[in-house]
């Protein structure tokens, strides 16, 4: 801890504390709590039982109240720690509650009813993770299906994005031809046309192509992203033209030049685009919401929003599935964060 705090709190030139150092420190620690706190809170909550979720004030860790089967009672009874009139405490099981008084029994001597003021008893609780929050939606609801749909959409769309955009970027970076600036202009212009502007006509096109309620209807409109073309083109411009000439002298066809020379050399930019694409497609919401109306076709995002919008929200399942939805993105964040941040800083695009 000492080393870590010294590392984190190291200040300019090791001089004495300046007020700006304090502001910096407060800002950063505050940021840490505000940025990570909500997601961490959600993750903790996802392991709670519905009963624990309904509690106020909430506990941080998931607790369950202990129960015991007592002889003479059919159902298991809840255990409480009760303060006895003589000042000692005893673990008792509650039989029923009448007003401010609870009727309790000692599990060891079930015959005898003890009356305890409800203010004098606290439930016996232990930490327990409600893993059924995770297993039930997968086994009894369609979430496994949604997960598969999301994975399918993400992987397929990303692969097509990489191929189609790298081909276009190759044409726009390594060839001189009439209409090149027009093509660039068209691609640039599509930057101005986000989905929210064209969703109505796009829907009609998708349905006339028979892609309504079809995962391909989600995939295809997203794969020709101008951002992708720009990132790749920018990178391909740095590949020397002499390399292409050398390959032409080496009897390579243009297609061979594309996949044996240019594509391998564009790998870093392709990786950045692949990461972006995975995050984009995984997170897509509005368009899948429009195109997919059959339950078995929902992606995770759509499924989550539909379930969370129901009148009787089953928060314990929703929270668990939110965590599942978060996992790939968190993995990307942990392992590939550096890639993304330099990618964004370099292009200014997301």
């Amino acid at each position, binding site marked *: 801890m000492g080393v870590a705090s010294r590392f984190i709190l190291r200040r300019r030139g090791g001089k004495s504390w300046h007020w700006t150092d304090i502001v910096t420190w407060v800002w950063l620690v505050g940021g840490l709590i505000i940025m990570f706190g909500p997601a961490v809170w959600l993750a903790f909550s996802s392991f709670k039982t519905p009963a624990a979720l309904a509690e106020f004030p909430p506990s941080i860790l998931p607790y369950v109240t202990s129960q015991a089967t007592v002889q003479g009672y059919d159902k298991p009874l809840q255990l409480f720690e009760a303060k006895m009139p003589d000042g000692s405490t005893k673990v008792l099981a509650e039989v029923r509650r009448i007003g401010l008084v609870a009727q309790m029994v000692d599990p060891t001597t079930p015959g005898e009813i003890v009356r305890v003021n409800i203010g004098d008893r606290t439930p016996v609780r232990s930490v327990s993770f409600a893993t059924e929050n995770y297993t039930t939606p997968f086994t009894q609801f369609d979430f496994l299906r949604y997960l598969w749909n999301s994975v399918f959409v993400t992987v397929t769309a990303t692969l097509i994005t990489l191929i189609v955009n790298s081909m276009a970027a190759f044409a726009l970076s390594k060839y001189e031809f009439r209409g090149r600036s027009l093509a660039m202009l068209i691609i640039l212009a599509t930057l101005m046309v986000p989905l929210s502007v064209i969703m109505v006509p796009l829907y009609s096109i998708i349905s006339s192509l028979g892609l309504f309620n079809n995962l391909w209807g989600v995939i295809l409109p997203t794969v020709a992203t101008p951002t992708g073309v720009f990132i790749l083109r920018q990178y391909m411009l740095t590949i020397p033209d002499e*390399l292409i000439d*050398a390959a032409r*002298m080496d009897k*390579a066809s243009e297609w061979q030049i594309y996949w044996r020379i240019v594509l391998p050399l564009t790998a870093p930019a392709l990786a950045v685009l692949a990461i972006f694409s995975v995050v984009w497609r995984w997170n897509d919401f509005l368009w899948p919401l429009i195109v997919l109306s059959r339950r078995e076709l929902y992606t995770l995002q759509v499924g989550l929003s539909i379930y969370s919008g129901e009148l009787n929200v089953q928060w314990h399942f929703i929270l668990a599935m939110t965590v599942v939805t978060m996992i790939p993105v968190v993995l990307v964040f942990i392992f590939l964060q550096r890639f993304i941040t330099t990618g964004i800083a370099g292009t200014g695009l997301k």
Partner: protein
Amino acid sequence: MGEITLTKIKKSFGAVDVLKDIDLDIKDGEFIVFVGPSGCGKSTLLRTIAGLEKVTGGEIEIDGKRVNEVSAADRGLAMVFQSYALYPHMSVRQNLAFGLENSSMPKAEVAERITEAARMLEIEAYLERRPGQLSGGQRQRVAIGRAIVRRPTAFLLDEPLSNLDAELRVSTRAELAALHARLGSTMIYVTHDQVEAMTLAHRIVVMRAGKIEQVGTPLDLYNTPANRFVAGFIGAPHMNFLAGEVADLETGTATLATAGGHRLLVPFSGHSLSVGEKLTIGIRPQHITLANDPGSLKVKVRLVEALGSETVIHADLNGEKLLAVVPGQKLISPGDETYLSVAGAPLHLFDRNGLRVKGS
């Protein structure tokens, strides 16, 4: 065979004419060097021969066959690029093999050719390395190797030595000459360095502004430059140019007057000069000697570069710059006045248009 014939080659990028009516015959087995200042079109000319650029007009023939419409891949030529253009993601072996595999050559033969070329160029030790792990000189060899394995009708080399340091450049130059002697194939070599051109070429093609200024053997160009540009370009340090005027004409000799009233006698035959005509007189610095004779050129010394084996004197002759390279070490310092003699030096005469005066 590797005969290449260029007839009236034209190339323009939009409104800019980069090549203007280039005519050239390159013989089989010849080592020919295109030389000229940057932007003269020499690289473009090489690229049109390679097929990487399409000509705007004229004809290219290889071994008597018109190849204007033949793609670069099918002309049977190999090229060594200035930046080497090695595929960075492939090992040296894969770099050499790439072109051969593309012409679907049997694997055994590919391996054999690579082994042979690697032995010839002494790059066997790093066949499995990537270009990024090689030094500049090693990369250069690989680039040449990639051309050799193709066994092309002709090699095209685009400033292949310009990325090497001075010492390596000299030794690689010698190796290239040896390689050419061994392979005996036609080589077309582009450079802006006239020393490279002089040392390597059978014939040099001097180019300027998209035109050929002169074609000839290195000594032809040195001894009888066709115009002022070639005279200034070939030879180091550059030739001195003095303004002069024909003062007197006799049979076999012309008397020239330079600024400051000096008179130079030049052997001359023919009738292309007339008295009073303004000329440019070219004198190579190496042909000027120090003299004590008051009849020689009286100059003021501006700068002295003592190189040990020789001394370079920058002098001022009545406001005109004069450079002299004299052998040995001389006790002379800036500000001195001294005499320089051009007696016995070959003088090059150029007329008002910069062309060599016939008969001089």
